[in-house]
């Protein structure tokens, strides 16, 4: 007879296959010596990676995406810190509803944000540029940052701040010497989340891109040409390896921070 444990084992196995098999196909076809993406495999090659190296339009898209993602991560985390600090430290009238409205873009369909931002930017008379994409990305990333950072700030014992002040330190230095180091794991997590969301965001970037495509927009454009598919697989492989290593590095730092301070685990993923 099959017990309950067996059922869950199968369930877990199938779940993991569905989750990761497509991702594993990326490197498989990236090294396949054939311009047609299908089984059986033809042989080993690294030529698709070489193709990437010589595609200048791809390099531009990568540069754009990195620039947007880094800027978005910094600004959303900055806004997140301010909002999280305000909402956990001070009480002011309408705090709950204000926080609710700030968090709303998290569940709003991106296509609505994309279209409405496009309308607004055209109405104002702004040129579509990388900055309009950054604007849209900050809008959707900030709620995630606030969510992560609120938990980090909430875990902070308020008497630590008072103790620092009581010991003769200024409010400004208290922030740098006590508060910031203790919420650092949360800030790293927030930067990382915002960076990742921005890097692979497509809809807003597509609407607001103007003449400068981001990486996802570029990849979408290339899908029209079947012969480009293997090199996109190679690109996907690189992105996969990069994002996994980024996540591991960030988690290493987070764990180290938690070990060092012994404070409540805040805002980690792994």
């Amino acid at each position, binding site marked *: 007879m099959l017990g309950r444990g067996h059922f869950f084992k199968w369930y877990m196995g199938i779940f993991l296959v569905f989750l990761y098999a497509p991702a594993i196909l990326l490197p498989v076809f990236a090294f396949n010596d054939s311009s047609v993406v299908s089984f059986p495999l033809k042989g080993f090659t690294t030529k698709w990676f070489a193709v990437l190296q010589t595609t200048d339009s791809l390099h531009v898209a990568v540069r754009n995406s990195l620039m947007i993602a880094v800027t978005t991560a910094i600004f959303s985390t900055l806004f997140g810190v301010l909002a999280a600090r305000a909402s956990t430290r001070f009480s002011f009238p309408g705090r709950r509803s204000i926080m609710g409205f700030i968090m709303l873009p998290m569940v709003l369909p991106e296509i609505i944000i994309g279209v409405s931002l496009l309308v607004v930017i055209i109405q104002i008379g702004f040129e579509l540029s990388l900055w309009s994409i950054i604007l849209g990305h900050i809008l959707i990333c900030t709620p995630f940052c606030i969510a992560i950072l609120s938990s980090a700030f909430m875990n902070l*014992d308020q008497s630590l701040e*008072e*103790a620092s*002040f*009581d010991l003769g*330190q*200024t409010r400004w230095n208290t922030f740098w010497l006590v508060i910031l180091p203790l919420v650092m794991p949360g800030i790293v997590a927030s930067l990382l989340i915002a960076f990742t969301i921005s890097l692979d965001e497509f809809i807003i970037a597509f609407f607001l891109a103007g003449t400068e495509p981001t990486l996802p927009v570029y990849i979408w454009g290339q899908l029209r040409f079947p012969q480009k598919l293997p090199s996109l697989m190679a690109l996907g492989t690189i992105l996969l390896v990069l994002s996994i290593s980024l996540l591991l590095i960030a988690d290493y730092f987070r764990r180290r921070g938690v070990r*060092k301070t*012994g*404070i409540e685990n805040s805002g980690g993923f792994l």
Partner: protein
Amino acid sequence: MTQPIIQLKGFDKFFGDFAALSQVDLDIKTGEFFSLLGPSGCGKTTLLRSIAGFEIPSAGSLYIDGKTMEGVPANKRPTNMVFQSYAIFPHMSVAENVAYGLKARRLPKAEITTRVAEAIAMVGLEGFGDRASHALSGGQRQRVALARALVLKPRVLLLDEPLSALDKKLREQMQSELRRLQRAVGITFVLVTHDQEEALTMSDRIAVMFDGKIAQVATPQALYGQPCSRRVANFIGMMNFLDAKILSTSGDTVEVELQSLGKLALPLSQATGGIEGCNFAGVRPEMLTILTGSQTAEREIEVVVSEVFYYGDMTYYDVRLPFKEEPITITMRNTAGRAVLAVGENARMGWSASSLLLLK
């Protein structure tokens, strides 16, 4: 006359409509161990935080060392605080925690190093300097918090329920240690506590607070011996109460009629909170005795033992007086040859007029 180190005049603090402190006048003398004692919500912590500068008074004034503290922020006041949660910076070592305030004052490195080492030694944490502070026990955190505050040589050290998080044994040890430290450094300590025993054993003087007001300020002995109201008496130790009716006052004596004990004349000085409105007589359990054999006392009354609590060194008896529903408590030391009475036994209770207090 020496100037008090802390002076509060007409101090008020409102949180919305709630008066956390109302019309508090208080002088704390230089170098004394002063306790603010009261039940939770009585305003003692608000008062301490006001002295530290974390709360701004709604009215009234505060002077430290004769200087007004109006507009002086917490980081500029000559006070330091030991927080209830200790508030040890978890990302710093013990030595870094202790050095924190000295670094804020931008003292030379060499001086910081020596003073930190002294402070760590003073609280008995030698060899713990490099320890990560989150790896410390509750008692050790407490010591770090003390060292971190005392290293700055404040004029006043404020302690917010510093022992409440420790277990009983450690608490008693820290009580005597705090007392020793206070004598050694000679700094004025102001301690907030809800534990009357803690306040009695450690303090030079105690302020008992109820509902945002100071009920009585006195030495531990005076507070226990001459409480000014039934409420204070009940909060400090145990006390038995009998209904009392003032019949007449003449000169220094007052004629009262007591429940069960009858009429008697008492000196006016035994109405420790003033004779006005007194309607209770109070007597401490240890001032009453159970008489055995041929023992006699100034006054005697027949009682019935209703409950016996045996504590080894002491026995607590609940006894019933005629015409009084509530039993009263007598504590007796268990000396050699003294038999412990059983429930339901008749006994003679000895008492004296001089041990009675008239209270309202």
